């Protein structure tokens, strides 16, 4: 095994494959930094070219492109409140407030550092877990996946302390929004109002742009200000960010573990990795009253997990031949065209094992390269925080419109964006929490699917499965612990109500 690992590493670091890896990383970071360009769309365009290459070069190139998008899209999440991709939504919650406070460099630096660490952890977990991953993944069936999604939803109530009812209602609204379109198990077209545009459902891209990006741009344009409310970014932000990453090393490791785990479980969807990590950080860290107001830990947690999940996603793709996302599905097509045979054969066949380790090495190297490239861009990029609104607003709105248009390539995408943005704007003005809407939207289809599959397969007997009971206990702890903390805090003498 170690011989194969060494061969794989040496193969990837040869000049030509390394060159393709660098090219792939550059394209991946660039695509990630521009909303609507990266991810599966970019991969789909590059795939035909990659399939022409020698296998080792193609692997290096494609891994470079696919696994670094979450590093690149931190720029827009932090600087503009535009989630650059589905893995960077949670980063907006604390990243953008940090930029508003003049701490953009610190936020970006911390993000890139933990992205690199998280990505390497994901690669290491991929390396170490191959022999045992099959039985581990198989032990999680539909009932257990349902409990994971409930765990995700339960975090919303916990995190909306101060307005738990609003948080839960918002999440339910998100779940209902996710039901628009055809219900595969019954064939019913839900909430389509006889409009073919709605048959495919509402796109997550539209939801995240209209809930976060457009309302923030409206607020910026309305007050005619700048992103950063301070006059100077100060010095030392980059170094401070690096120190933050090591200061909160256990958070980084925990979040990376969450991300890897979410990536491993096919069917959970990698767009929840950052949310799970964020929520987990909120629950387990001390003094979290500043989460959502520019706490660097709110950036560290999602950024560490969304890179670690790439390693997790590759585990199931390679070990089972089962892709957990569209990007992984496209990668799988490429691997098969190279003559590789993802699945149990790939792990046990020495001739193929060498490619597996080459993939792992490429994954680790790409994380380091991507972070390095992004670090070099921090200083010029952070100056965006001082651009006046009449520079930022039109450019970001234009990019947002383009990104929304990529959903279905229809003008109705723009109409839907504006309609949902109106809703997102009123959520903000009425002080309803917005993130639960997005989380509910992302988790909703999975909640429904796994509940349905569990009942269809096991009737009500699924409730007594050991995994379900264990996860149920975890959810109960998740819900009760903050209530206990709040009860303890309430023993503190009260102060008179502040004037509104």
């Amino acid at each position: 095994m170690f011989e194969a690992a060494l061969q794989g590493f040496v193969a990837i670091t040869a000049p030509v494959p390394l060159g393709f890896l660098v090219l792939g990383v550059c394209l991946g970071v660039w695509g990630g930094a521009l909303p609507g360009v990266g991810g599966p769309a970019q991969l789909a365009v590059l795939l035909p070219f990659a399939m022409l290459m020698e296998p080792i070069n193609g692997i290096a190139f494609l891994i470079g492109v696919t696994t670094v998008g979450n590093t690149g899209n931190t720029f827009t999440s932090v600087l503009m409140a535009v989630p650059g991709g589905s893995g960077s939504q949670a980063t907006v919650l604390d990243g953008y407030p940090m930029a508003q406070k003049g701490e953009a460099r610190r936020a970006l630096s911390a993000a890139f550092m933990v992205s690199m660490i998280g990505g390497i952890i994901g690669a290491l977990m991929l390396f170490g877990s191959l022999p045992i991953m099959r039985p581990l993944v198989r032990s999680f069936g539909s009932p257990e996946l349902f409990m994971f999604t409930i765990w995700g939803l339960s975090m919303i109530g916990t995190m909306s302390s101060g307005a738990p009812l609003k948080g839960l209602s918002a999440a339910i609204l998100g779940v209902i929004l996710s039901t628009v379109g055809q219900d595969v198990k019954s064939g019913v077209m839900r909430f389509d109002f006889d409009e073919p545009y709605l048959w495919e459902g509402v796109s997550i891209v539209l939801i995240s742009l209209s809930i976060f990006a457009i309302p923030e741009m409206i607020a910026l344009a309305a007050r005619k200000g700048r992103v950063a409310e301070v006059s100077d970014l100060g010095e030392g932000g980059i170094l401070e960010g690096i120190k933050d990453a090591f200061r909160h090393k256990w958070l980084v490791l925990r979040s990376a573990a969450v991300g890897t785990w979410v990536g491993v479980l096919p069917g959970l969807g990698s767009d929840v990795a950052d949310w799970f990590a964020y929520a987990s950080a909120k629950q387990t860290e001390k003094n979290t009253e500043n989460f959502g107001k520019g706490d660097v830990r709110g950036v560290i947690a999602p950024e560490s997990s969304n890179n670690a999940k790439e390693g997790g996603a590759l585990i199931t793709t390679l070990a089972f031949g089962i892709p957990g996302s569209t990007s992984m599905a496209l990668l799988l097509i490429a691997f098969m065209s190279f003559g590789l045979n993802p699945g149990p054969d790939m792990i046990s066949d020495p001739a193929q094992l060498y490619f597996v380790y080459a993939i792992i090495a490429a994954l680790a190297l790409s994380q380091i390269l991507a972070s390095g490239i992004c670090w070099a861009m921090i200083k010029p990029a952070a100056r965006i925080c001082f651009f006046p609104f009449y520079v930022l607003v039109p450019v970001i709105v234009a990019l947002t419109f383009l990104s929304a248009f990529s959903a279905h390539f229809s003008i109705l995408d723009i109409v839907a964006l504006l309609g949902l943005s109106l809703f997102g704007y009123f959520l903000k003005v009425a002080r309803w929490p917005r993130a639960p809407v997005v989380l509910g939207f992302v988790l909703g289809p999975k909640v429904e699917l796994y509940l349905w599959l569990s009942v269809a397969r096991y009737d009500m007997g699924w409730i007594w499965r050991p995994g379900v009971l264990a996860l149920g206990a975890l959810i109960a702890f998740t819900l009760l612990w903050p209530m206990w903390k709040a009860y303890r805090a309430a023993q503190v003498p009260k102060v008179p109500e502040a004037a509104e």
Partner: protein
Amino acid sequence: MRFKPSDLFTVFIILVLAAAVAVASQWELRASIIILFLGSFGVVLATAQLAIDCLPRKRVTAAPSRPTMELPIFEDKNPKETLRGTFEIWGWLVGMLVLIRIIGLDLALPVFVLSYARFYGASWRLCAILALMIAAFIFGIYDQIMHVYWPESVLGDLFLDEFFDR
């Protein structure tokens, strides 16, 4: 009873959830159960929230906290100007939608960028740079690499389709 303007939004949420439940009740159970269950629960939660917000508070409490997962809203030093600015930007957004319908998305976006920046005081040079950046991005990435099919526009229907294979 204290009914604030923001409570209207809570009423709106209640109505939306109730309407969703009403529509879903016409479908077969397999398709509607999650909506019926969660939607009804949501109506109850939102109504409870409305009641909490509207009923007079008797107990003294700590300073009211904001929902945690929410971006901070800055101290509004000039609410009238901000409100006016809000209407302005919405006007721009709706106007851009109309412009997209008339001249097409690929042309409307650079025009919007140029005119917005210029309207609010950017120099012509800066406006041109921004508009060219957006145009280059649209043409380079969306047109040449992704080969996007742009939506039909009034101008395109009348003139451009004669000359370009769109």
